[in-house]
Structures are given as C-alpha cells and as structure tokens.
C-alpha cells in the first residue's frame, strides 16, 4: 500500500469521521467548531512555514479577508452561503497574489512585512470611509445565512481538503522539491527545481486554506467586528500549535492543536492575564528546549513520524 493511501486511511479519515460524529455526542458545538478552525489554520501554517520556511506572522490577514469576502457577498449580493465561502477562499488567494512580492524577502523581514500587511488590511477594512462596503469599524451582522450546523459541516469539509493537500505534500515530488528549496534554494534550483513557482504555489495554497476558514468562520458566528476576525491571536495560535507539534509533518500540527487548545479550554477564560502568562512561558520554553516540536522527541530516537 503506498504511504499516501496509508496516511489518508489511518489519519485523515479517522480525524474527519471523529469531528463529523462528535456534535451528536458532545454538547459544546462552538468549542468543536473552534477546534476544526484551528486544525485548518495550523495545517495552513504548516504548508507555508513547514514546507517552505517562510514564517507567516500575519497569517490572520487571509482569514479576516476571507471572513469579509463572505460578509460582502452575503450583504451586497445576497448569494447563498456555500458560494460565498468559495468566494472567501478566492479573496484569500487574491490577497495572497497581491502579497507575492513579499516572498522576495527572507527570514525575519518576511515575517515582519507579513505582519504589517495583515495590520494594513485590518485598518483598511475597519476604515470608517468604507462604511458603505464593509460597514467599517461597526461590524457586520449576517442573520440571513445563520446556520451553525451547515457551517460546521462546511468547516469539516475544508479541514478534510486541507489534510488531503498536506498528505499530498508529504508524499509527492512537489513536497520534496519544496523542502529542498527550504533547505538550500540555490542547490535546489541547480537540480532543476523551479524555485519561484514552487514557493508561489505553496503560498497561494496556504492563503486559500485560510480564506476558506475565514469564510466558514463568518458563516458560523454571523456577527463580528474587524478586530475579531483580524485578531493577531489567530496567527499566533496557529503558529504555536503547529510548532508545538512539529512542522513539516502531518501529525505534528494535529497533536499541537488537540493538546494546546485542549489545555487552553481547560484553564478557562476566567482570568485571561494568568492564562496569557502561562501561555507566554510555554512559548518561551518551547523555543528554548524543544524547537523542533513534540515529534522531535520521537524522531530523535530514530522513529519515523508521518
């Protein structure tokens, strides 16, 4: 059995089935939905950071743009929600295309420029001068399409598509070429890899994933403000979850989301500053003592982790 089929059968299918069945058993629908959203975003970060080495510090820009793409389609054109989610994904891709020049930057420069880009999009969307289009800082309310169950189903579908793409990256020549570019772009290009095209495809794929997630999120919550959907927490959480598990693997980000987001919800929201303190210390400890993530505990012993 080829390993891609094995990965699909033993990791993607069970995860999708679990999240499809859980709402019937477990009451807290919103919590499950947030788990699915963070699984999508962590894998999106995995696609761009794990496989190409670009750290998308403003990843939430795509997410928020997707959410507003959904909102504008529903508010201005009264389109059905499913179509609006697809448009949300395309808005993510369009923003990704607009930002492709950023890929010329390296290292910290890219991360900072990406952060600045996401903040620029936030301030653009929230500008009172655009109130007739985006409703500016006053937020949007989409009562017409409100349907949590359908939105949840859509989120699970997006998650399944994202996981399938990551399995493809992990098992294909394309993914291998991307990792070669990440390690040494000059050698990779001498070996015949089209460096620029590879990076742009991975970048747009990761933007598409975040745009779709944003659209589904807007569908689910239906009332939100620019500060909600452009909150830097989305970028940070997705990056930390992916790193905690271990990037450039299929399992790493999944483990990261389930463990860390689980802990997050166990600690609860009663005292956010104590949570922030624990979280900050956790991040610092992670970087100092386990920079390659949880899976490195296994790979160090020579075990293969998909």
């Amino acid at each position: 059995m080829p390993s891609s089929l094995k990965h699909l059968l033993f990791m993607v299918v069970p995860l999708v089935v679990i999240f499809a069945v859980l709402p019937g058993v477990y009451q807290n629908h919103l919590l499950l939905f947030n788990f699915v959203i963070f699984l999508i975003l962590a894998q999106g970060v995995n696609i761009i950071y794990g496989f190409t080495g670009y750290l998308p510090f403003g990843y939430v820009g795509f997410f928020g743009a997707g959410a507003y793409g959904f909102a504008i389609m529903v508010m201005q054109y009264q389109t059905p929600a499913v179509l609006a989610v697809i448009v949300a994904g395309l808005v993510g891709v369009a923003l990704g295309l607009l930002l492709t020049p950023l890929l010329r930057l390296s290292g910290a420069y890219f991360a900072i420029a990406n952060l600045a880009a996401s903040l620029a999009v936030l301030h653009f969307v929230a500008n009172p001068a655009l109130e007739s289009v985006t409703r500016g800082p006053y937020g949007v309310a989409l009562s017409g399409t409100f349907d949590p169950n359908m939105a949840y189903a859509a989120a699970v579908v997006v998650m399944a598509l994202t996981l399938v793409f990551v399995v493809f990256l992990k098992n294909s020549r394309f993914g291998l070429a991307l990792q070669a570019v990440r390690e040494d772009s000059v050698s990779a290009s001498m070996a015949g890899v089209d460096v620029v095209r590879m990076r742009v495809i991975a970048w747009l794929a990761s933007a598409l994933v975040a745009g779709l997630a944003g659209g589904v999120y807007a569908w689910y919550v239906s009332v939100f403000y620019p500060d909600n959907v452009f909150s830097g927490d989305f970028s940070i959480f997705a990056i930390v979850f992916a790193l905690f598990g271990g990037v450039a693997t299929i399992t790493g980000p999944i483990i990261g989301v389930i463990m860390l987001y689980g802990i997050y919800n166990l600690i609860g929201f009663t005292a956010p500053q104590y949570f922030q303190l624990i979280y900050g210390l956790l991040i610092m400890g992670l970087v100092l003592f386990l920079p390659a993530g949880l899976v490195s505990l296994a790979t160090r012993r020579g075990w293969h982790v998909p």
Partner: protein
Amino acid sequence: MLIYALVAGVLFGLYFSLVGIGLNLVFGVMRIVNLAHGDFLMLGAFVAFGIVTLAGIDPLFAVPLAFVVFLLVGVLLYWVLVPRLQGSVNPEMLSIILFFGLSQVIEAITTIFSGTSERSIQSRLLGTVFSTIKVKLFGGKPGPAGPVHIFGQGFPAPWVIAAGTSLLAIALVYVYLYRTRMGTLTRAVMSRRDEALATGIDVDRISAAAFGIGLGLAAVAGVFAPFMFGSVTPAFGADATVTSFAIVVLGSLGNPLGTALGGVVYGVCYMMVQTYLSSWADLLPYVLLIFILLLRPSGLLGRRVRVA
C-alpha cells in the same frame, strides 16, 4: 498649517528615532528580532508613573533610572535566553516566537499588577526641573512652563524636551559605536559575527552589552510615551513594536544615523497624513513598511541587501 505639521513632524520624528534605535542595535548585533521591544517601552512608561506617584518629582529623573535598570535587565535576559537560542537551527525565525512569548509574559505580569486601565501623566509635570533651576538662578515666579515657540508656532513643551533627549541619546549611541573600543568591537560583530569570533572577540560579552543598551534605550523612550501618545496601557507594546520596525527598516540596520533619518522621515509623513488625510493615518506605518521593504530592503542609507 504646513509649517506646524513639518516642525511637529521633525519633533515627533526625533522621538521616533529614539523609539527605534534600541531595536536597531539588537537586530544589527545579534540578528534576533526583539518582538518585546514595545513592551520594554511600556515598562519605561511605568517607571515614569512610579517616579511621579511615589516620589512626586519631575519624570525626567526617570530617564537615568530607567536606563540603568533596563541595562541590567537586558544583560541578565541576554544570558538566560540568547546563547541557547543561537545554538538552534534557525535562530532568526525562532527569536520572533521566543520574544513574542516574552512580550506576552511582560504584558500579563503588568496587567496582573496594575490592571488594564489607561494611565497618563499631567504634561506640565515634565520639565519642572528646568523652571525650578531658572527660578533659583534668575529669580522670578515659578509657574507652569508654557508652550515653546518655533517659527512663530506654539508646541507643547514635552514634545521639545522629548526631541532634545532623543538627540542627546542618538549622539551618545554614535559616540559609543564610533569613539570607544567596545563600539569598534560591536561594529565588528555587526558586520561578520563568525569572523569576529575567529579574531578572538568575546562576542557574547559585546552582544550582552548591546542587548542591555538596546533595552535601556527602549525604556528611556518609554518614559516620554505618556506625553507623546497621551496615555499608556499594558497592551501598548504590540503597536509600538510594529512602529519601531517601520522606523528601523526605513533607516537602515546597524546605523544609528540611519535610524535618526528614518525616524524624522516617518514623523514628517505621519504628521502630514494626520493633518491632511486623518482617517487613513493608521494605515501609514504598515504601508510605508511594506513599500520600503520591497523597494529598498536595505533602507535609505544601507548598502546590504537581504533578499531570498
């Protein structure tokens, strides 16, 4: 109107240079991104609050205090965090995440001890030491310092004092880098870290000093933050970090004069947009940062190009 915007832009710009210069030093020497820079600014502001509420004296006295305290904090933090970070596979990327964690910790601790409310200091308190000296030497009545007049326009005294302090601080950084032995070594580490190590320079000691000075300068800039921005909350750090980045990248890395120029250009642009297109002023730092990164990644005065 135009002259007012220009002069205010230069005054703010000088202050912005002070805001960015510490970040510039840290990135230039260590190649690590101090994402907690803005939080040290915020802590500097809290030193000023402490001085005013506990001792009731001119917040200017907080400047040397903040510098010394955060110089020591920086040297200490360096030895705890950085050598371990430099040993990892990709220190530049991981430093972003590490210092983000640090900024969360600082913000959380400040919130736990002081709450989330906005704090400000009455602006007439700043610079009372000058008027007291004036009264002692020349007689006359002690009174609140009025606005300072430049080109026939009145500007709040704290702006002028902050700009003056910034000029002094930049001059001192210049003297440190170009007129002292430590500074020469620092510049050697900036240009080629591994070669500096091979020549026998104690890179860790130089870097620790640069890190301490960087944090100290951030805290000094923070002392003036309540006067320049109106008020300060524990969450102020994140915005201040992005603004500092815009200024540093606008100038160039590892060149204090570059940061001074970047700060002034930024300040003048900021005041111009604020005056003529106020609803778009929030966008400026981000858009400016992206354009400069794309068009001239090495900054206005830089020579080094960093592209993938």
